[in-house]
């Protein structure tokens, strides 16, 4: 069985985000999006159980490829990366179009996503990919089992959870909290260095989506409230009570 996990390289979230002409500034060194680690972990657990091959698919400026390396260090077998000037500022639909084309190349049966990327958070790419590929898609998955014809998923719902079974050629988006992403050890880190990273040429793909979203401007929101700050020396609870009374809550 072949599994593809779509993971994104993003600017280190520890640093402040900056935009230039409506585009997120991306440093040369980008890291693996933490939200994608859950999908990778799930794929690796399936690999260990059912002997699958795990391919990382990543679109965006290559840079040092640190983020892709991090995914390989966790235990993925190889990576397909796609990077082209023309994709800078790609909207969710273009991204999904590119990823679905690359997913075809990967010949994956199961295509795994995060639910929302940390830097783009459109939350629509997985479903769009499934529509491009004419496959079913289930979002907010927490656990997966596989038998000969079906995948059996546990998914988070607004009210609780439910189980879903579906054909094993499908798309899923994985949410946090179902599996605990592994940390690579020294051996994994060394092993990742010799894993293949293949570059896909955009000209070999059939891209029909176009940029329909025109950036106008970014407005700053006045956020700082100049609220009152009290250091607790044992009596600070009193200020809360006074405030709650003033607001007629108590």
């Amino acid at each position, binding site marked *: 069985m072949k599994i593809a996990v779509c993971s994104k390289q993003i600017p280190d979230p520890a640093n402040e985000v900056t935009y230039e002409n409506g585009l997120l500034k991306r440093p040369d060194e980008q890291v693996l999006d933490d939200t994608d680690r859950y999908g990778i972990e799930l794929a690796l657990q399936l690999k260990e159980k059912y002997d699958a091959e795990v391919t990382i698919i990543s679109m965006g400026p290559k840079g040092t490829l640190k983020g892709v390396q991090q995914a390989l260090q966790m235990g993925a077998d190889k990576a397909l990366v796609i990077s082209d000037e023309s994709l800078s500022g790609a909207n969710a639909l273009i991204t999904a179009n590119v990823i679905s084309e690359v997913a075809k190349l990967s010949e994956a049966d199961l295509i795994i996503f995060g639910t929302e990327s940390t830097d783009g958070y459109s939350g629509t790419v997985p479903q769009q990919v499934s529509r491009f590929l004419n496959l079913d898609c289930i979002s907010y998955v927490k656990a997966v089992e596989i038998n000969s014809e079906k995948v059996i998923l546990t998914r988070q719902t607004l009210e*609780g959870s439910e189980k879903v079974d579906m054909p094993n050629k499908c798309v899923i988006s994985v949410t946090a909290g179902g599996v605990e992403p592994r940390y690579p050890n020294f051996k994994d880190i060394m092993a990742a260095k010799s894993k293949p990273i293949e570059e896909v040429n955009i000209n070999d793909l059939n891209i029909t989506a176009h940029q329909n979203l025109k950036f106008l401007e970014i407005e700053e929101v006045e956020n700082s409230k100049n609220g009152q700050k009290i250091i607790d020396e044992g009596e600070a609870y009193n200020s*809360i009570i006074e405030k709650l009374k003033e607001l007629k809550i108590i």
Partner: protein
Amino acid sequence: MKALIVSEIVDGKLSSGSLEIVSKAEELGLEYQLITIGSEEQPIIGSNSFKQTYLKRSPNSLQYNKIADYISNVITNEQINLVFGSSTYQCRDIIAYLSVDFNSSPVSSVIRFSLENDKVITLNSINGGQQLYKTEIDSSISFLLIRPKSFEPANFELNTDFTTIEVESGNCNVYEIHKEEKAGPQLEDSKVVVSAGRGMVDVANLELINKLSEKLNAAIGGTRAIVDAGWMPYSQQVGQTGKTVKPDVYIACGISGATQHQVGMKDSKFIIAINKDEEAPIFQIADLGIVGDTLTVLPKLIENI
């Protein structure tokens, strides 16, 4: 412009997120209709003020592809050029499918929008709401995902007057449906919310949160960190990937105030934060900040209310 509002059902009724979009459509004088997706037997989603079609799926089948096929036809046949949905699980999935059919990327997390000379201009919050990103949609059919709590919901009397269309089952079978019990005030409509983060130190200390919320008749929320840790069910998560709340008072206990949490609560009318780290980002948006230990401040607060 002709609009379609893709809607959903919460607690047997048209969701308040859907009603928010209805009120905005009324305000703009749009010609609009609703299509609501659900599996409920007798939902209260009709109104004398709009046309409502109920796409009823079996609770045991998740066939969003077929649902999207149906809606695609409506969009084409009725020449709709504006399609809305709340940024919630189901509406987001369906809008995503439709965006492929009409080759028009959606705008997610929209909190405001306007129509200027037949152009759709959207504002969505980025950076945890510290900035607003303004976009013009250049498509004959525009798709907008609206963040709940962006507008006041329409105050329409709802009834059971609508057309039902049963959607045939698909490839995804659903079973073992588990619904958590809903007890006490609900997050979305409670006047007071008491929320917990990792700074409650241990799951056992959530007892303090329970006690405080009882005294204040408040709903209980939490950060993703504690939901992921299994301290609280997902239905109580506040933030970008959880619920958006706008209570009169929000009390954040041991919450750092990550941008993804802020998006879900920063529009609360009055924010009280208790955190032992003076530099915690939550203090930037708090109206009253207490620099202190949750485990010493909360017991005294509860005792003295």
